């Protein structure tokens, strides 16, 4: 690994221990707040709740470059192009190796009042935005997501005003090309505010095009206003040696609705923190996730849905497929406070293990303090059924094909209603390739 590193690389722990924000930013108060939060939480260890199975040491000891050079070569551009989703009309903002890449970004048509700009620029202009983000940080439970607040290099700010609907979905392409020979690390932050009655569709597309190790720490914060509607697609296609820490925070006001789909493959360690907080009544969220693990990949999905007010509905389906020595964890907590009467939640976790050395941890949890609520949960881990395999084979499908068909059939339900054909077909292709590898 050291062959790739330049002298200026440190470990992620070193960077965090320096405990200093990068210089010359105009969002000092946000940085101070996150620093304070990070210090209060301390470095995560395996003894902390929520980090039990996560290889914290591996994360902290990843080599990280302090600075990244941000010139994307023509060759890099050519590599990225197939992922531009050009057949569907999107607004696209691309980050390559941690830097905003203007040449791969394109903004076509933004309705009146919509702002889609770099987070750095937005923070510079809007003091109040900085305060809102800082205020949210005081409740951030994940130390490394808090650390992102003083480390982030840039990101995106999206604002959709009242009654406004985005004409085109937004494609946030977050790519690692890794051509610089440096150890890579990137820290990006995204803030999205949908005002009352607004609507948006956002694709968060994490793409690793290198087998080199890198660390990506991304934080997304979504505020979804009254009657507003957000559809979010989180797609993670990482290189084998990638470490991805991804925290997504959703705050839903009255009558808001969130649909989230998360697809993940590859990466040595991926941690998705998906937190939804109901801040107004009658809101609802629909969370779906699929992770495909092979070799040594490990994916940890930590879901936390907080019913803080009455009458909200949450639905979750998380499916995982693990082969090789893959590890999957879904740790999903639904928390209903005393006032959250008439809350309705449903959690389902299903794991498919394709090899004896693969592991699955499924932990649906409930913390309920209200008495008039509905909360259903279930978890199941299994292998491909022998009867099903025989049935398919008895119709002429080879062993491999039968295993493929059953595995794909297990997964497909999660992705089948993606509304954008380009994304759906990319994910389907990716799933097919990954599952193909798993069933040999």
């Amino acid at each position, binding site marked *: 690994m050291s062959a790739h590193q330049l002298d200026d690389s440190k470990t992620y722990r070193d960077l965090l221990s320096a405990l200093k924000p990068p210089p010359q930013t105009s969002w000092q108060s946000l940085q101070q707040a996150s620093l304070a939060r990070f210090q209060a939480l301390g470095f995560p260890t395996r003894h902390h709740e929520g980090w039990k199975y996560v290889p914290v040491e591996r994360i902290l000891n990843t080599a990280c470059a302090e600075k990244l050079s941000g010139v994307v070569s023509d060759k890099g551009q050519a590599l990225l192009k197939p992922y531009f989703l050009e057949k569907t009309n999107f607004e696209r903002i691309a980050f390559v190796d941690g830097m905003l890449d203007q040449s791969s970004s394109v903004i076509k048509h933004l309705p009146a009042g919509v702002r889609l700009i770099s987070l750095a620029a937005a923070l510079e202009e809007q003091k109040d935005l900085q305060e809102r983000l800082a205020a949210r940080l005081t409740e951030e439970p994940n130390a490394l997501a808090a650390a992102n607040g003083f480390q982030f290099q840039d990101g995106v700010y999206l604002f959709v005003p009242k009654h406004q609907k985005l004409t085109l979905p937004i494609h946030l392409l977050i790519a690692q090309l890794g051509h610089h020979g440096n150890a890579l690390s990137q820290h990006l932050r995204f803030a999205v505010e949908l005002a009352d009655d607004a609507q948006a569709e956002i694709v968060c597309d994490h793409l690793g095009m290198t087998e080199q190790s890198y660390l990506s720490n991304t934080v997304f914060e979504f505020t979804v206003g009254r009657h507003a509607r957000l559809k979010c697609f989180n797609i993670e296609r990482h290189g084998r040696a990638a470490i991805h820490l991804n925290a997504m925070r959703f705050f839903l006001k009255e009558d808001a609705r969130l649909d989230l789909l998360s697809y993940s493959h590859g990466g040595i360690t991926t941690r998705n923190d998906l937190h939804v907080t109901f801040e107004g009544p009658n809101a609802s969220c629909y969370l779906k996730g699929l992770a495909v693990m092979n070799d040594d990949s490990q994916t940890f999905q930590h879901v936390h849905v907080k019913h803080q007010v009455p009458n909200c509905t949450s639905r979750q389906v998380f499916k995982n497929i693990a082969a090789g020595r893959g590890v999957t964890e879904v740790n999903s907590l639904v928390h209903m406070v005393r006032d959250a009467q008439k809350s309705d939640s449903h959690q389902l976790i299903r794991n498919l293990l394709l090899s004896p050395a693969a592991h699955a941890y499924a932990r649906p949890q409930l913390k309920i303090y209200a008495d008039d609520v509905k909360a259903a949960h279930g978890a199941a881990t299994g292998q491909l059924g022998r009867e099903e395999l*025989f*049935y*398919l084979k*008895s*119709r002429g*499908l080879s*062993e491999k094909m039968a295993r493929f068909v059953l595995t794909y*059939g297990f997964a497909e*339900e999660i992705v089948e209603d993606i509304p954008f054909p380009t994304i759906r077909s990319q994910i389907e292709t990716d799933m097919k390739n990954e599952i193909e590898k798993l069933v040999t």
Partner: protein
Amino acid sequence: MLEIKNLKAGIGNVQILKGIDLDIKAGEVHAIMGPNGSGKSTLAKVLAGDPKVEVTSGTIRYLGGDLTAMEADVRARAGVFMAFQYPIEIPGVNNASFLRMAFNAKRKQNGEEEMDPLEFDEFVKQKMKIVEISPDFLMRSVNAGFSGGEKKRNEILQMAVLSPKLAVLDETDSGLDVDALRIVASGVNQLRSKENAILLVTHYQRLLNYIVPDFVHILSNGKIIKSGDKSLALEVEEKGYDWLLPCSEQTIRGTERK
């Protein structure tokens, strides 16, 4: 086409088939009847290549080759088809694409070109007309949530699509209403030809009015204890199996009844 000699087979440590001899030639229809638990389904599974059933001795030759040496999928592509007594539900796997994959796997084996989805759609819809299944079933997952009778019809649809050389139908007539029985029978009769052979497992002589067998065999306690023509089925219908059983077993059954 199929020659079974002194076949013994079991599941785990339980011996179920205790020496079966059966010879089926191309163009013939054989029916197997016998009491519950006598080993009829086990025989069907052995022929289809269910890895659960272990052949402990004897031989099965199919078209001159050793059938037991072939994996289930190889047998299927070589023209063996078994309609399950209890078809398996496979949620998440689309019925139409499953049928197409099975069909194309066989085409490929025969060195033919695969049929594209559109062409296959036409083809399968024709077959669905024969077995009177609505095209809606193409969109659903394989057998998932199908009624008992719908599952059986789906088996016959698969058979019609794959047009096997040797079809083994394990109680495909059980649980069917009269209309469905007629439909299943016409599906089977369409397959009937000089080149193909059919083995029917059934409890009811009723089916044999629609599909007239050349031979009827009675399987009891893992052995074929009597063979005859279609009149044997009528006799069984009238008198049950007791009169056919060896004396020792008759007594046991007799005592049980008291």
